[in-house]
């Protein structure tokens, strides 16, 4: 086995030649990548290019047409774009639901919930309902719910979209803190420049169902690749259609 193949075998997330269509439209045309422990992969690209579809495939929410999706663990934390908190449950109950499969003793469960909420600065809202929280607070609870069981894989779907710049920075700080604490393999899907620049160790740029560029965040700004240049500098002129 080659050194590179051996390395790929040890990845926490491995995606190989992944294809997915919705009706006649092929959203993913053979995507491959790996994510290792303690690393955050940024997936960037224009709206509708298949970024969120990759997350759904990784969580087995939808089946792939072909290709391989390997995740080292079934414990996956997903931070949804729209928080997706259960409105009929309190913040505590939302987090408890995430721990349900673990069947922990009540005192251990309570301690984990309180610790995680403290981490995102929302301990005082433990018995509030999602409707009583602001958008930013809901996102932080969603974040807490995704990490309360300390998963080995954390997926973020547009974690800072729709938030003000200060709250975006707060969320990005939590992501960085967690990467240090949990050593999880993470994927962040975003088109917010500051988010991928601050949180991702590597990024891939998707366009029309294919990876058109990959590299480190710093390299994105100096690359000659026309796709990444158009994306980073937000220009109309370039290979990515603006229809």
């Amino acid at each position: 086995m080659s050194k590179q193949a051996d390395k790929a075998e040890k990845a926490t997330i491995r995606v190989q030649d992944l294809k997915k269509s919705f009706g006649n439209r092929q959203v993913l045309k053979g995507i491959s990548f790996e994510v290792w422990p303690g690393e955050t992969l940024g997936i960037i690209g224009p709206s509708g290019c298949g970024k969120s579809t990759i997350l759904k495939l990784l969580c087995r929410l939808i089946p792939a047409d072909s290709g391989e999706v390997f995740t080292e663990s079934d414990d996956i934390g997903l931070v949804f774009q729209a928080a997706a908190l259960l409105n009929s449950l309190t913040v505590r109950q939302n987090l408890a639901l995430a721990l349900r499969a673990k069947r922990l003793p009540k005192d251990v469960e309570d301690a984990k919930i309180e610790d995680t909420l403290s981490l995102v600065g929302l301990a005082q809202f433990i018995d509030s309902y999602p409707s009583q929280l602001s958008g930013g607070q809901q996102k932080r609870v969603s974040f807490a719910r995704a990490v309360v069981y300390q998963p080995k894989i954390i997926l973020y779907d547009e974690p800072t979209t729709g938030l003000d710049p200060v709250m975006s920075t707060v969320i990005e700080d939590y992501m960085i803190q967690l990467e240090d604490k949990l050593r999880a393999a993470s994927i962040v899907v975003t088109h917010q420049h500051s988010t991928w620049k601050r949180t991702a160790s590597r990024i891939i740029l998707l366009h029309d169902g294919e990876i058109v560029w990959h590299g480190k965040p710093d390299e994105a700004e100096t690359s000659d690749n026309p796709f990444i240049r158009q994306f980073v500098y937000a220009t109309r002129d370039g290979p990515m259609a603006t229809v």
Partner: protein
Amino acid sequence: MQEPVTKTNPLLTLEAWFTSGIRLIGTTVSLLFFTVRLIVMGRIDWPEVMRQCNMIGIKSFAVVGLTALFTGFAMSLQIARELVLFGADTAIGGVVALALIREIGPITAGVMLAGRVGSAIAAELTSMMITDQIDALHVMRVDPVEFLVVPRYLAGMFMMPVLSIYAMAIGLIAGIQIANSAANVPMATFLDSVKQTILDRDFTVHFIKSFINATIVVMFSCAIGLSTRGGAEDVGIATTRAIVWTMTMIFVFNYIVTSLTYAPR
């Protein structure tokens, strides 16, 4: 989400409607199978069942009572008017009670539950679908059927017979009042006629209809809610669809049970 019908040919529209109906019935039957299996396995969240009993049952008492009262008034008035003409006023209680226990009680409770609860379940689950809450449950490895459908189904099965009997009792009270005021039949005569007419089998059929109605309301509403995709508009479509399907099925199955149990041989 219901598939948009873009073809103008009425036959094709009918075909699309028929296909979507068959698909919904299939989804509902398989959802019922998985729900019953989870109940048999003992995977029941009892506190949530109690909460749903309150939502589905306790909060329906006022609307079911009011509907049953006025249905009882109207029906008793019609029956009293005809029986008095034939000098059979002492039989008013029996006839009113028969109508209530065999048809009006289960139907009134079922229809009101379909309108109040079926629509709410469909709207709630559809909203959960379109805001990714159901996906969140899958990611957390929480079975949505166990978490959402089982408590609602059990609550429906517990509360529907209670509501049906309650509707019947309210209807009888309305009957006593009308018999007394419109035909001068004393309460004792009315109740004596009820006792002589009602058989144990009537109660059995009454409960069978109640259980079937509960199954129809909860299962169709959950199946519609959990199979809807799209946006805010689809919440309204799903709600309407749930009411139409549950009410239609209540009347269809009511007739089937009546024909199997009371048809002349």
